[in-house]
Structure formats: structure tokens, C-alpha cells
């Protein structure tokens, strides 16, 4: 086995319910109670016990092909896997290595890069973060100004990244940097990998309005990375970034977070007695249908990925609808809480303790990050609906 550990069996050959039972049993028996349904992004050290177990079991990369050490799950099985995680409130770890770097290296990396990085991603020996956004390059990402200059057999990187999730925990960062200042915007950008422990990197947490500090500014001051950490061609990073964005849109468009919201909403309804109110019921069923039909849409796109076909610009619909549905669900959670909806943290409601505002805050930036929903609508208007530009 070149990458990771061998799979116990061919999961896709199993009946859906048999597979679901195996996943459920593993989670219920081993996932730590104290980190179920967290209201903030947890740090790596809070989750390392569970995810190191997943790594040893070969379950850390459910969507990766088995030849690269993943579980090789079909779209339908992957959805079941996510559903079971959500049902139990399994927390997300700093998983950029699994969801972003791995797939990029499989598609654009060299054999040597795959050999160097994939095993460490699979073992959680390396934790990755994303260096994309900059203070003056948000929606207009291609205007980024962080520079990388080749100096002998090393790139020297200077600049500033921001909104970097869990950079505190990361051992490595993937960076979009300008390597050709003379070229047109998109044409002069390269995709580089760098070690976070080298001199010149400073991480400064950003306190957010929910009181958390999972987001960071990352300053790069003469940071050196070996030239063989260039992924894809020199100045060819934008294509990779764009393909990752399509990939990110399907991930941000998965029904995971809305499913989680629905479960919280249902708990609140049970605890408060709102479930007997026909007005609540109508809104609740509307939201359940939104999530059910998001699932139908997600299976359509996951099927395209599963068949190895390219995703079109229409995949933006997933990100838009998943995040806006998540917000509508968390709006109703807080509204159903009534006056209790003003209280931070775990709130005693009926005979239960439920964090009402946690999901609400969690859902707010989802329509901003990963390409704001306004940008997604622009993309659909121009590239799918072929409406004229100004």
C-alpha cells in the first residue's frame, strides 16, 4: 500500500443500510461525547483523538480514491457517511489537506509531490491551511498582491493573507502568489506549498462577532519554500485555484450543515412544544423540503464528480442554496427560542440544554466565504444564463 492503510472492504459493494450501520456503530462507540455538536470550530488538539483513530482506520479521506489511501466512496455512500456524522454531531477538524491539497496533488501534482505529502495528510502528520484571500483581494481574488520570486532553487514569498481558518493549528499552507508582476491579473499567479514552521510566518488571530478566533491573518515575510513546491506550471496557479473553487462549491453546497441545523431545530421544537403549532409546522416542513431537495441536487452534482466528468459553472447553485437554507433554518431556531434566543452558549430550554445562537453565528459567514453568494449569482448569470455584461 503506497498511500495510507488498506480498506477493510469494498464499501460501495455494501447495501446502503449495511454501510450506514457500520458507520453509525463506529461513531457511536468511539466518538467522544464532549465534542458532539460544538458551537464553534474546534482546534486540532480537541479533535486529534478521534481523527487519529480515523486515520489509522483508513477513514480519514472518505472521498479519495482507494489507490490514494481513501475510502473510495460513491456519491451516494459519501452522502450516507456525512449524514451519519451530522446525526451524531461529529465536528470538522482542520481538514484542508484532505478536502483541498490532496485532490489538487492527485490532479496537478507530481509523483514526487504526492509521495511527499499524501501520506502525511492521511496520517494527520501535516495539517494544512489555505492562503487565498488578502485584505484587498476578496471577491476580486485575482487582484492578489502577495509575491513569490525565484531565488536559486527556492521561492521567496512576501505578502499578507487573511481569513485563514485555523492557521494556528496548521503545519503547512498553500498559497496563491504573484510570480509574474508584468502579466495580466490571472496570468501571473502560481500555486505554492509552504511549511508554516519556517522563519518569516506570523499568524495573528481575528476575533469575530461570535467571540471566536478561528480566523487569522497570516503575514509572510521573506518566507522561503523549495522550488519543487510549485504545483502545476509556473504562472499557472489560477487554473488550479479555479478548479479548487468548483470543488469547494460542491463541498460548501453539501447538505451537511443544513442537516445539522434541522436537527437542532427539531430539538428546540420538541423542548419548547413548538412542534404542535401549525404555523411552526408549516415553516419546519418547508425547511425540511429545502434540505431534501438540496440533497437531490447534491446527488446530481456528486454523480458528475463520481463519473469523473468536469463540473460546470452551474455548481454554484449548491453553494447558494445550501448556505441560504442553513441561514433560514438557524433564523427559525433562534425565533423558536423566543426570549431565550438572546442567550449565548448552552441554554436550558424545557428539559434540554441547547446552544441556540451557535448555529446562527455559524451560518452567517457561510454566504460570504468561498466566493460570496452575490459572486456566485454573477457567475450563473454570465456563464450559465448567458446574460450580457455591462
Amino acid at each position, binding site marked *: 500500500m503506497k498511500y495510507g492503510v488498506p480498506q477493510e472492504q469494498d464499501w460501495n459493494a455494501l447495501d446502503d443500510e449495511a454501510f450506514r450501520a457500520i458507520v453509525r456503530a463506529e461513531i457511536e462507540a468511539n466518538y467522544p461525547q464532549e465534542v458532539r455538536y460544538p458551537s464553534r470550530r474546534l482546534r486540532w488538539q480537541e479533535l486529534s483523538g478521534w481523527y487519529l483513530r480515523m486515520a489509522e482506520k483508513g477513514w480519514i479521506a472518505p472521498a479519495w480514491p482507494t489507490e490514494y489511501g481513501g475510502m473510495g466512496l460513491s456519491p451516494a455512500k459519501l452522502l450516507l457517511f456525512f449524514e451519519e456524522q451530522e446525526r451524531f454531531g461529529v465536528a470538522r477538524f482542520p481538514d484542508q489537506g484532505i478536502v483541498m491539497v490532496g485532490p489538487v496533488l492527485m490532479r496537478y501534482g507530481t509523483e514526487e509531490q504526492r509521495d511527499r505529502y499524501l501520506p502525511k495528510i492521511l496520517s494527520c502528520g501535516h495539517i494544512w491551511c489555505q492562503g487565498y484571500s488578502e485584505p484587498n483581494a476578496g471577491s476580486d481574488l485575482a487582484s492578489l498582491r502577495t509575491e513569490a520570486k525565484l531565488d536559486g532553487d527556492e521561492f521567496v514569498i512576501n505578502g499578507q493573507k487573511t481569513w485563514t481558518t485555523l492557521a494556528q493549528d496548521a503545519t503547512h499552507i498553500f498559497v496563491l502568489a504573484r510570480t509574474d508582476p508584468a502579466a495580466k491579473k490571472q496570468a501571473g499567479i502560481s500555486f505554492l506549498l509552504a511549511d508554516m514552521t519556517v522563519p518569516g510566518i506570523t499568524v495573528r488571530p481575528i476575533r469575530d462577532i461570535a467571540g471566536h478566533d478561528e480566523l487569522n491573518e497570516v503575514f509572510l515575510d521573506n518566507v522561503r519554500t523549495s522550488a519543487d513546491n510549485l504545483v502545476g506550471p509556473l504562472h499557472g496557479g489560477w487554473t488550479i485555484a479555479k478548479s479548487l473553487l468548483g470543488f469547494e462549491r460542491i463541498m460548501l453546497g453539501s447538505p451537511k450543515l443544513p442537516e445539522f441545523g434541522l436537527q437542532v431545530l427539531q430539538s428546540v421544537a*420538541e423542548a419548547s412544544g413548538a412542534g404542535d403549532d401549525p404555523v411552526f*409546522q*408549516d415553516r419546519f416542513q418547508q425547511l425540511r423540503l429545502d434540505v431534501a431537495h438540496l440533497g*437531490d441536487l447534491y446527488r446530481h452534482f456528486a454523480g458528475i464528480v463520481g463519473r469523473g466528468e468536469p463540473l460546470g459553472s452551474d455548481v454554484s447553485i449548491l453553494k447558494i442554496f445550501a448556505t441560504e437554507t442553513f441561514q433560514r433554518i438557524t433564523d427559525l431556531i433562534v425565533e423558536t427560542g423566543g426570549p431565550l434566543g438572546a442567550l449565548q452558549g448552552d441554554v436550558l430550554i424545557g428539559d434540554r440544554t441547547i446552544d441556540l445562537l451557535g448555529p446562527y453565528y455559524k451560518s452567517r459567514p457561510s454566504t460570504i466565504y468561498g466566493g460570496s453568494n452575490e459572486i456566485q449569482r454573477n457567475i450563473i*448569470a454570465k456563464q450559465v*444564463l448567458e446574460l*450580457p455584461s*455591462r
Partner: protein
Amino acid sequence: MRDETLAMLADVAAAFAKVDGQRVRRALSHDAGFDRKTWVEMAEQGWLSILVPEDRGGLGLGMGASTVVARQLGRAAYPEPFAAGTAVVACLSEAESAAAWEPRLAMFSAGVLLVSLAWQNVRGELDPGVTAAGDGDDIILTGESRLVAAPTADAFLVLARLGEGQALYWVGRDEAGLAIDVEISADGGRSARLRFDGVRVASDACLIAPARTAEVMRRAMDVALIVSSAELLGVMDQALEMTLEYLRTRVQFNVPIGSFQALQHRVVDMWIQRQLTEAALGGAVSVFDNPRASVDDRSAAASGLKARAAQAALFLCNQALQLHGGIGFAEEYGLGLYFNRAITLSAWLGNAGRHRRRFGELSSTVGVTAGGAA
């Protein structure tokens, strides 16, 4: 059915049901509210036999094929009662004594005998206000049924209460004691109000006996919900296409108005609802065709789909009207055919609110009080 076969069927249906507002207006001007000749041509295409099992002389092509045809009919705003027809087929092919009813199923599928269901009440539930009572060997029907498609039908399948249960009866349009009033729906189509004043039918007019009526009617309802949702999807296809074309070509302030971001984002929201309905239709068809899905799963998927399609079509058509400006409100332009069709189909067999409720009742949600399933 394979995707390529369905795509071919869609092409055939699109070539048959061309977008032609004048044709629709002419069809609506008939007493029936549709064109009987077109109905026969649709039957000749085999479309009324799609859901009839092969061993009953049908094509047995399944739900996917029916919805592919329905979508194209919706795209052309056809007033011909295709969705209602699929429900009739779902009942006739489940008749008690197959041999006795086979000729009528064959005549219906061929388009020569027009039959319609009197089955819903004004809330869109399967409980019309008709009562059946035995009188010797005969059955006496009393009461009233609303919102019956095709008032010019040669015969009606009448769902009636019989004691504690329900049964389905065949009633010819000329039976003594049956009065047929016509009501006009938003799209200009017709629906019948049937009044049964002691209508006497022989006991062999019983198509489905009480033991199986609930099951057969529920399935027929689910079929009609899925097929009418597919028609609504076709309505959305065309209203969206008309709007996009208008935004690309209408010039104000010296630019095509489709270049304005405020309008682009609104039309993207219309498109999103169309795509969701399409995905929900695919999901519902696969649940319906899955022999391992439970009856409740099937009905929940059908109701969930109808709730989506009804809401999405009304939203999309209202946005289309706004984005067109004044011209969309003019009958002559043709957007109104879709606007009005959306109102009609959204309400038929229960609107979005009704089907959100049925979806909630049928799909398990632990701890939230559920009512009885319809």
C-alpha cells in the same frame, strides 16, 4: 428506462407539443376546455399507455417516461388533461375484474373514450362529498364532487364513501340524477362540479372495492402529483426562457436590461427554483420506481415534489411578469398562458401548503406531533 431513451422521448414530445399560443387559445375555446382531436393524437403517440403495465396491453415504460412527456406538454402550456389521464389509467389498470374493464382501459388509452376522476374535495384531499348506499343489487350515489377535470368526459370514476370505507364507481355522464356544472379555471380550462341526486348504478359499476380503494387511490394521487409537477416544470422552463430572451434583447438606457446586476440576480433566483424542482422530480421518480421504497416514502416524495413545484412555479411566473414589465401583462404576448397555467396546476390536487402538511405527516420526524396521513 435508460437516459438516452428518455431523451429521445423528450425530443418526440417536444416536436409534437410545439410552443404555439394560438393553438392553446383555440383549444381553450372548445366547450371541453381543450382540443379532443389533439387528445386523440396524444393517445396515438401511446402516451396514455405509458403507465399501463405490459401484461395489461400497455407500454409499461414507468414514471420517468410519463414525466418527460408531461414536461414538454407544460412547456407548450397544453390544456389537455394529461396528468388527470395518468391518474385514470392508474385506477383503470387496477380494476377488480381485469377482463371486464380491459376494453374500457383500451378505449381510454386510445383516446376514444374520455374518462375523468371525481375524487378530491376542495382541500385537495381524497374525500369528495359523495355517499354510496346499497339498494338491492344497485348502488345509489348522493352528494357533490368539485374540481373534476374534463367536464365533457363520457364517464366519471367517482370516489364515494361506503359505510366506513370508500369505493370507486363508474358513472356514465348521461345517468339520471347527475347534473354537471362547469367552472372555469385561471388558465381558461374547465372543471366540473358534479351533483349526484340519487344516481343509480348497477353493482358491477364498482371499479375498485373498499378493501383496495385507499391503496389504489393513494397511488393514483401520487402518480398525478408527480406528473402534474413535471408539467409545472415545463411551465417554468418556458417562462424562464421567455424572460431570459427578453432580458437579452430589451434595450433601455441604451443597454440590454439583462446587463443590470439587480435583474440578473432575480433571474438567477428563478433559475435556482427551476433547477431545484428538476432535482426534486428526479428524486421523486427514483423513489416511485424503487420497489423497496415504502408506500409512505413514495407519497412523501410525491407530496414534497408537488409542494416544491407549486411554490416554485408561482414564484417564477410572478418574477417573470415583473421582469417583463407591462408587456407581460398583455394577453397577446403569451406569458399569461404560463402565468395562468401555473396558478391552475399549483392548486390542482392541493397547493404547496397542503402538500407540505402531507409531506410532514408521512415522513417520520421524531417527537414532532404528526397528524393522520391522507
